[in-house]
């Protein structure tokens, strides 16, 4: 009886060690592949992710809001990711603000309850600076 319990405990402990190894290997595989592919994949627009120091400029409030709220879908460079490329939009200020506030059916979430009107205006102003 004692032998059986000791054997079970031994298998359980071995299982925990293998589980930890499997978890770490899985995460390593995911992060390693992502790092490798990220380094090898040129960004749309012809530049590689991460601007050179000479091109780094202080972010505007609109850009900071964009990075915090919009970049997960539109990309840090606003060249599109899940959502579309935002460069050279042919929309009025009212249309851009309305889209941010109300979202778009079947795609973009509404930000009207998450952002203040002044933040939405700042975002609109930032999007306006994105030329083709």
């Amino acid at each position: 009886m004692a032998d059986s319990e000791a054997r079970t405990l031994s298998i359980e402990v071995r299982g925990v060690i293998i589980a930890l190894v499997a978890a770490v290997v899985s995460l390593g595989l995911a992060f390693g592949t992502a790092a490798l592919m990220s380094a090898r994949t040129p960004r749309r627009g012809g530049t590689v992710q991460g601007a050179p120091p000479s091109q780094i400029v202080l972010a505007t409030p609109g850009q900071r809001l964009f990075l915090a709220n919009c970049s997960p879908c539109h990309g840090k460079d606003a060249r599109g990711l899940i959502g579309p490329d935002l460069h050279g939009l042919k929309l009025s200020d009212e249309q851009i603000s309305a889209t941010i506030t109300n979202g778009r059916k079947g795609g973009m979430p509404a930000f009207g309850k998450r952002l203040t009107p002044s933040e939405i205006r700042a975002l609109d102003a930032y999007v306006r600076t994105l030329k083709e």
Partner: protein
Amino acid sequence: MDINASWLRIHGGVTHFPIALIVASLLFDAAGHVIRREPHAHELRAAGFYALLFAAAAAFASVASGLVLAGWETGGRGMLAEHHAFLWPGFALLVGLAAWRIVVGRETSRRAFAAYLVFTILAAALMLGAGYWGGEMVIGGR
């Protein structure tokens, strides 16, 4: 349909499997733990075991499609960061739990299996959290 829209649909479809299967696995295993009468207990735990294995396998497909969709971003900002904050510990825990079940098979004490169930609850909660923030990125705020 552009390539990102395709990956969005693939990720959106595939990602339901690990979430649904880990919840199913938890329910089967919890029932198998409570109902001690054989052969029901064994059958319920077997169902929980296979559901967990398929959940772990589907999690790899889900992670792979998600990484492609996010441009190989593992962190990110805003809702993507929230999504990843739940996803990575949930993914690691799910794979670890599946590995543990494979190693121990049926040779577990009730106490160890109860501890396993607690970790499965945590993994299911993390996967549901990742799913919630993933959904928020696409259709949130409505």
